[in-house]
């Protein structure tokens, strides 16, 4: 994974390089000054990483995978249920399933969070809370 990440960064810089070459002259002037040394730097680092032995870390990978899944669940829930219900549902699920807290405690925390968010979006924030795609259908 370490090596893949270094290669991914190099690939990202190559995307920037290719796109830069396709820009008109004034728009590409500054990016082209940056991208060429950047690609070289990242290539050096990628080669360095590829030469290193990657230590086995199956346990760490499993932990990271679970953490990533839980993390990405939040924006997904918000997209579906909106900016008030989404975080509340997430906190409820997280506290109950991952943190193994009691259901009543998780529910109380989730409810308080929903109320706080409703208040914040009503009186503090200058943007409206997203309703989410599911609630928008209703």
């Amino acid at each position, binding site marked *: 994974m370490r090596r893949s990440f270094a290669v991914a960064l190099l690939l990202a810089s190559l995307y920037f390089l290719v796109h830069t070459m396709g820009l008109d002259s*004034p728009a590409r002037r500054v990016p082209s000054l940056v991208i060429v040394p950047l690609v070289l730097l990242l290539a050096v680092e990628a080669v360095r990483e590829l030469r290193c032995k990657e230590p086995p870390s199956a346990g760490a990978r499993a932990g990271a995978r679970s953490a990533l899944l839980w993390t990405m669940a939040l924006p997904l829930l918000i997209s579906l249920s909106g900016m008030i219900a989404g975080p509340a549902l997430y906190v409820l699920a997280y506290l109950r399933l991952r943190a193994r807290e009691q259901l009543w405690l998780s529910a109380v925390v989730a409810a308080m969070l929903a109320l706080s968010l409703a208040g914040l979006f009503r009186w503090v924030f*200058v943007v*409206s809370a997203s309703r989410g795609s599911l609630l928008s259908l209703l």
Partner: protein
Amino acid sequence: MLGSRRNSACPALRRQRISWLVGWSPGGGYDTYSRLMEAPLERALEAEVVIENMPGAAGILAARRLSAARPDGRTLGILNGVGMMLAPYSSSRFAPQLETDFTVLGRIVANDPALVTGPELGVTSFEEFVARGRQQPLVFGATGPTTSNVLLEVALARMAGIQIELVLGFPGSQELFNSLLRGDLDATVVSEESIRTMAGLTPLLRFSSAHGSSAARDEEIPELLGEDGMIARHPELFVSAERAAADAEALSSLLSIGRLVAAPPGLPAELHRCLEAATWACLRDEGLRVSVARARRSLDPAPAHEVLAHVRASRHAVAPFADIVKRAVERANR
């Protein structure tokens, strides 16, 4: 009564949040006008107006966002009218047309630009300025390629037969002023009210005869047009006085378009009508007049139909200038 405290001009927008897009950074002229209009517009619409700064590409970034927004009345913005007239002729791939890509709701103030120089150039009159410009190229600064200052600088160079070099990309008028004071630039064109409190700069010429409720318009700055204007009094300063007068008239008409309040295109008729009414009520608001004067700015409102008349009248005037602007910008960007 439209715009009164009791009746909202637009019932559909009552208690809604309206985004107001500004294509420049906080602190500049467009931002200042937006913040001054926030409260009276909220009163007129009984809604909440939220200002969103989206600086970039001399206002085009915000103009694109405004044009693409949903026509539900919840997105409004302030536009550089002259810039929008020039944009279709620029190298930008997005070329908004003022009449079709926006719904113009009214004008806040006409452009009232002035030519200004710094201490390093050492000239104190327009006559000396022209004489210098005919001897050696003068370096002008501007913010972006589709701004009125580029147009006026290039047009003036053609009228007076002076050589200019353009330096584009200054973030705002303050940076232009500082560059003038340092001697990096010889001259620039900015709004007359911006230069009022900047010590050390010399205003040489005003391009339009715009009036309106101006806090302290400097009447000593000579104008280009008119009986006492520079063209009439000193025709020798221009390559062709007749042509210069025609150009100046065209520019004056263009400058009358000014800073505009706009919405996305395709507004439903009722919403269009009520937003126009609310904008007009806001621009005529006494509180706005007082706060604009306090901010040492000018107010010169015009309803949408008048603005659109100026746009149509100026349409033919833009094309000849657009060509020379495009060439000057290409040279600047090489």
